[in-house]
């Protein structure tokens, strides 16, 4: 006997929902299991005195986002606009617009 359409639909939706719940449960387990990895990573950050993630290596101002200055993305001339693609992905660090030396 063929299944009712509603049974097929509700079964599929319940299946998808269970898959999603399963994924989220597995996720929680993975987060717990990753604690030792993060302990090693923080030790490395302390040892090397790192300040940034190595996410974009194409330009200094995206490689070391927190260490950058306001002029670098615009290079050397007023009309020389930022031209590295990853510059369009990231926002400037909030502290960039203050805490400058008076000589800026």
């Amino acid at each position: 006997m063929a299944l009712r359409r509603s049974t097929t639909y509700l079964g599929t939706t319940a299946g998808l929902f269970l898959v999603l719940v399963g994924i989220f449960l597995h996720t929680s387990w993975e987060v717990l299991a990753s604690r030792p990895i993060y302990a090693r990573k923080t030790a490395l950050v302390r040892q090397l005195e790192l300040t940034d993630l190595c996410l974009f290596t194409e330009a200094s101002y995206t490689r070391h986002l927190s260490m950058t200055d306001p002029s670098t993305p615009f290079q050397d001339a007023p009309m020389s606009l930022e031209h590295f693609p990853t510059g369009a992905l990231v926002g400037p660090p909030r502290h960039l617009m203050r805490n400058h030396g008076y000589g800026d």
Partner: protein
Amino acid sequence: MVIERHLHILDFTLSSLLRRKGKNGALLLVYTLIVFILASVLFFTHALKREAALVLKDAPEIVVQHTLTGRYQPIPVAWGDRIGKINGVISVRPRLWGYHYDTLLMANYTLMVPAENPPGPGSIDLGSGISRTHGANSGDMIAFAGHDGVPRMFTIRKILDSESQLLTSDLILLSEKDYRDFSGIAADQATDLTLRVRNPREYATIAEKITRMYPDTRPIMRSEILRTYDAVFGWRSGLMIVILSAAALAFIIFAWDKATGLSAEERKEIGILKAIGWETSDILMMKFWEGTAISLTAFLLGVILAHVHVFSTSSALFAPVLKGWSTLYPSFRLTPFIDFGQVATLFFLTVVPYTITTIVPSWRAATIEPDAVMR
């Protein structure tokens, strides 16, 4: 009884949807794609922000840069002595680091003298990204041209662990002697100063004292480093706003299409149903199931696919955008940190509005007399 009624209405709704297979299939596909893109962006940015917050929580408490005409410059090491005398500062260390552009592979590397356990003179530790592109392993010799164009030979002491690629992929760690010789930085200068501070509540006061002491310096506090990554993929940043506006626009089109009324065929269907005895509430129930069937399926499929995309394929679809012009790109796998609040928000922003905009025009059609609707 109530359940059986719902099941019958659902049966009818699904048959009605299947009668317009092409249109509804395309709708489901586009809807799933939008949820997939939005969920991928949310999962990726949240996991990356959490990663940054967890690993950078032990970054230097304060970094002091020397600025000249708006750009950072090497800082005199002697400034550290005066800064070290500020109350609350435990220690000051001159940090040596910089960049090296490899003309052969057209890749940027970060050179750095580690605070602890630096390699001996003539040796280096290599990030796994550089090791991969050069095909170099520990014990091998490798040469890089220094500031004067003369190549220096180094023995690779070790390759940095690949689990920390998101931190060290492009790093070359070397001794202070080798770094000064390689970069040409004077013996009395450093790239910046790192401070250890006893009390986190004193960061701001110490930073203020430093800028008063040396007005051309820029202290960067640890909290600011952490906030940088919190805001790094903010919704206002270039590409993010393009993705979000495209998704918002697509939803507006969906909603507009639904809210501006029903097709003649749908109106006729409602008219016939009313004529054969369906109540207005039955028709609204049918439309509720219609909206739910499409939006809930799209939501579940989109979120599952986004999770697989971000956490199992290392955001393969985003990689070309994230790489930009980088030659070195860390092949990292993010830990699946998920903000369930974001998933719930995504649910309410995608499933609920669509379902409502499906019901409203049908309610208008269902309250008119059947003969007027069918005419």
